[in-house]
């Protein structure tokens, strides 16, 4: 597989075409954060509901390229049900992986590992980051 095929792996396409947890709720128990990528118009809002230290639910909506939209879907699937601390660790590890920083390979990124290929495309790192950054934002808001 070449870099590009690596980037557009089956699992990414699957989430792009069949997004999970998409659509926002009108529910004040969720914290929401919106992030845009000024350079290309990606625009994602993430809503998170935390209960007793557990990520009870994540919803999102927005527009963007396949990397951006699919990563929001993958993020929601990966993090729902996790302990808040674990979700944050996974997020940090994921973002480090994207930006070619050292990252703890013991952390199980689950499906999100497929975004490893993005580090070959620096101009697209933001696309794969913003949903996760918005999630981080919702947790910080709730603290």
């Amino acid at each position, binding site marked *: 597989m070449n870099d*590009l095929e690596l980037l*557009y792996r089956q699992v990414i*396409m699957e989430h792009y075409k069949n997004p999970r947890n998409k659509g926002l709720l009108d529910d004040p128990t969720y914290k929401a954060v919106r992030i845009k990528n000024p350079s290309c118009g990606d625009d994602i809002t993430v809503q998170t509901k935390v209960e007793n230290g557990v990520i009870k639910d994540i919803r999102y909506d927005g*527009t*963007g390229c396949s990397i951006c939209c699919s990563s929001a879907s993958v993020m929601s699937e990966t993090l729902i049900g996790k302990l808040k601390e674990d979700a944050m660790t996974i997020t940090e590890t994921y973002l480090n992986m994207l930006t070619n920083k050292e990252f703890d390979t013991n952390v199980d990124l689950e499906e999100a590992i497929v975004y490893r290929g993005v580090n070959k495309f620096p*101009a697209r790192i933001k*696309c794969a980051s913003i949903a996760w950054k918005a999630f981080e934002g919702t947790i910080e808001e709730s603290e």
Partner: protein
Amino acid sequence: MDPYILKKDFPILDDKTLIYLDTAASSLKPKQVINKLEEYYEKYSTNVHRGVYNLSYVATEMYEQSRRKACEFINADFDEIVFTRGASSALNIVASSYGLNNLTSDDEIIVSELEHHSQVLPWQNVSNITKAKLVYVPLNKEGRITIENFKKVLNNKTKVVALNYVSNVMGYVTPIKEIIKLSHNVGAIVCVDAAQAAPHKKIDVKDIDCDFLAFSGHKMLGPTGIGVLFGKKELLKEMPPIEFGGDMNDNVNLYDATWKDSPYKFEAGTPPIAGAIGLGAAMDYINDIGIENIAIHEKKLKDYTVSKLLEIEDVVIYNKDAETGIISFNINSVHPHDAVTFFDGDNICMRAGHHCAQLIIKWLKVVATLRVSFYLYNTIEDCDRFIESVKNARDFFKSAGF
């Protein structure tokens, strides 16, 4: 003109695999311009207008010589050329100085959905503050500004007409001369955004009789951080400065001050000296080739590419009949940002997005477009490689399930 020979002037094209199709965002720079910048920094890097020693005199002469070159480039007079940070700054001066001081709630400003943000947002601001009404020329079904539609919105209340000369998304040439004539008949002034015209088209401000006109250096082989505002003498004379300080004043007292005449009144502080000098070199380069020859070359490349793209299934072109070297298109069901990564893999640089012109993107009812823009350093081989890449991109994304 021979693009194969010209290519050699552009150091960045030493990378023979690079295909640069994003000139509408910013052009590449020939060594003649880069060397000129170096000359300033290595031989006479002093301030202008201020020193009475020789090096500073040389810098001042070179700076003002660039102003004279800009005059010749668009057939303006010396005191009608203001150096600015870029086209955006230039258009903002017109809106803030002329617009805010001359418009009232009885007046109307004509703009269009085909404008770059730098030509529409300053006038939105003027409209918000003065309550002058912002009026949009309806675009025809191709997305063009036509005389017929322009007449529908022009009336005795129109005080300012702010339109582009060439659109940066659609590449259409606006019938600006006739628009200016009609506008003057009702007493309106016309501010022309020539950011995409100056690099590609002979401009004669006396012939078209525009009141203001703006363009940028970096889109026409020149440095970043320099632009030109043309304004008719009589208008500039009456307009208040927008920035204060540095070199733009005459006498300064504790509680009042007087200004220099145009253009200096609008050039507060140390100007972008190297930028202006580099822009002069860029104009020389263009003049040596002949801007008409550049236009013919670009059009040829664009027509050829459009004809080939039309043969590719799943490609939608939004402006196939454009008169200049810009093509806006998409590949069906592939988000332009995904597509552009594919092209990047083939070392083809091109834009995906709203091109700082969201209104026309909304008008087209798309999220964004891909854009290719040609210039003098592009060749038929560039077009062929690009077309090949489009085919491969289409195949790749389809097979990936898009």
